[in-house]
């Protein structure tokens, strides 16, 4: 094994890239859960986003349009979940699982003619001046635009939840839907919008995998990334700042594991590839979760 072949600057730089799909999916789910809805279908929405984004990017040659398509695809799929849980009052856990199973099937069907094709290139941007700083520049300021879009969304969600009235209402709906209803807020509409935002973000995260990270389409390519995103929301105690930390820790483990594989560590690849999942479990155990939104996962039915 040759540890010297691991370049710490490249390691840290690829950490940001590895964390981005999880970060995107998790920030969407964070908003959904703050609104009091538990959508376990992140994996399904991610993979649907991955295939939608890939198909559109290949068809148009534009990765940007691919990402837009992925967001729309993810949101459409989440709408299915929204209608079922908000209007037909189905169990959120079961419906989320159904969404994942459905999404895996749907994406495989949609993507069967796209196997083995390469996605159109999505070049990195070199941020002027900042990108030239030694060490920091290559780590932080020489990535593809979606890395920064992801960071921007996290910041925007933080601002939205903590500084805007709409964010306050969303939190109120998630905290106590009966009280929010009594004050005249529209619980179902708020939740439906949150669910669609979550779907769009998961779609973006999936498309990041198929368009940037891999970049091609394979069946089941999300490989549990959606579930890890869910775990990171719990780890983050439903706070955007900690979410960023969680996603980067996870990205770090993934990247380190890949680097160790490449460096020829004397452990079979199969054991190394378990590490992100084991790390997620460890994090879930060590971090005693904060207080979940009061109405999380509960069915809202305005009786009288």
């Amino acid at each position, binding site marked *: 094994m040759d540890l010297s072949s691991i370049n710490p600057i490249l390691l840290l730089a690829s950490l940001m890239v590895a964390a981005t799909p999880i970060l995107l999916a998790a920030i969407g789910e964070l908003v959904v859960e703050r609104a009091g809805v538990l959508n376990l279908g992140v994996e399904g929405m991610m993979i649907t986003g991955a295939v939608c984004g890939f198909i559109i990017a290949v068809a148009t040659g534009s990765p940007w349009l691919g990402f837009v398509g992925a967001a729309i695809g993810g949101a459409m799929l989440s709408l299915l979940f929204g209608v079922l849980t908000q209007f037909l009052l189905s169990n959120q856990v079961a419906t989320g699982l159904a969404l994942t199973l459905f999404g895996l099937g749907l994406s495989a069907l949609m993507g069967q003619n796209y196997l083995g094709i390469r996605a159109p290139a999505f070049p990195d941007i070199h941020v002027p001046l900042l990108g030239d700083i030694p060490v920091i520049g290559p780590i932080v300021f020489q990535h593809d635009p979606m890395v920064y879009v992801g960071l921007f969304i996290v910041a925007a969600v933080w601002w939205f939840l903590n500084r805007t009235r709409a964010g306050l209402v969303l939190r109120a709906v998630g905290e106590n839907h009966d009280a929010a209803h009594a004050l005249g807020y529209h619980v179902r509409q708020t939740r439906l919008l949150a669910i669609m935002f979550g779907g769009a973000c998961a779609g973006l995260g999936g498309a990041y995998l198929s368009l940037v990270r891999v970049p091609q389409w394979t069946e089941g390519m999300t*490989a549990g990334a959606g*579930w890890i995103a869910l775990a990171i929301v719990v780890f983050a105690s439903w706070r955007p700042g900690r979410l960023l930390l969680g996603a980067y820790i996870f990205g770090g483990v993934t990247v380190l594991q890949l680097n160790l594989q490449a460096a020829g560590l004397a452990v079979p690849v*199969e054991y190394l590839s378990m590490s992100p999942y084991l790390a997620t479990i460890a994090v879930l155990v060590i971090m005693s979760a904060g207080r979940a939104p009061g109405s999380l996962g509960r069915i809202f039915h305005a009786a009288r």
Partner: protein
Amino acid sequence: MIVLEKRPQPSRGWSYAAPVLAVVLTMVVGGILFAALGKNPVTVIRTIFLDPLFSEFAWFYRPQLLIKGAPLVLIAIGLSFGFRAGIWNIGAEGQYIIGALCGAGVGLAFYPMETRLVFPLMILAGAFGGWVWAMIPGVLKVKFGTNEILVSLMLVYVAESLLAAMALGPMKNPEGMGFPGSRNLAQYPSAANLELFAGTGMHWGVVFALIAVIFAYIALAKHTFGFHVRLAGQAPRAARFAGVNPGRLILICMGLSGALAGMAGLFEVAGPAGQVTIDFNVGYGFTAIIVAFLGRLHPVGILLAGGLMALTYIGGGIAQSNLGLPAAAISLLQGMLLFFLLAVDVLTHYRVRFAARKVA
């Protein structure tokens, strides 16, 4: 304006009718989907749902029904207890793999000794493996309050990696000329899970699945344990007041579902699959979740739902080879079925009223 009104009691009629309606809706929407794929919808639906039972080759497909249905029913029965109690073991697929690995490990360790003890030991090892794998999320939930959904799911991916490592490493057939995969257990008489009656598809897994159905029925209808499971799911505080220890219930439900999933894995690897290969598992652990819900978490319902789901697997296979239907279409169809079930379930608990919108 459509208004939903909660029924004072769940409708009995709808709780039976809802799964049937869901199946019908799935056929209709699935048919539209197949038409969109350029297939004749009637032919496809008939191929999936009827040909395995009634075509001229049905003699070949009917035994398959038991072979595919048994693991689904066995796993779903285990899951149904936890699901009723609000304990969500989503990682049955992982427990299934680990059960298979443990059971196969015992079998391979005895090779080539011929003794009647091997197979029972393998069953025990399979159940134990699944139990251990399920106890990880169970214990973590009880001790640390960790979310069992996420942990059990993460462990599926870990189990898949472990399976790959085993198939390529310690369990690789030394006489396999370098191909990945273990010795074929089906060709090792003491360890093989063979058909009990030739041509029926009836193997030990089917027997255990039927026993599990009967056991679950009695437990739910007649025993304090089943009563506590139902109580814990419907009203957790009332369950504590009735003397239910929530931690113990979690461990029992997780352990039970894990052990049954592990057994299912062993029966599969020692019989229909035959050997430990990198991808011998085909997602029964996930499909069983659909089976459990489609069967309303009721033992008899699960038996029927397991049969139906096995039918879609077999019929899907026929449609794939005869009509060129993509394999993914079948998993899509299965996911759709669960969606429709959840959607029409609203009729069981709520009454739908059409009210004219009042001018306020």
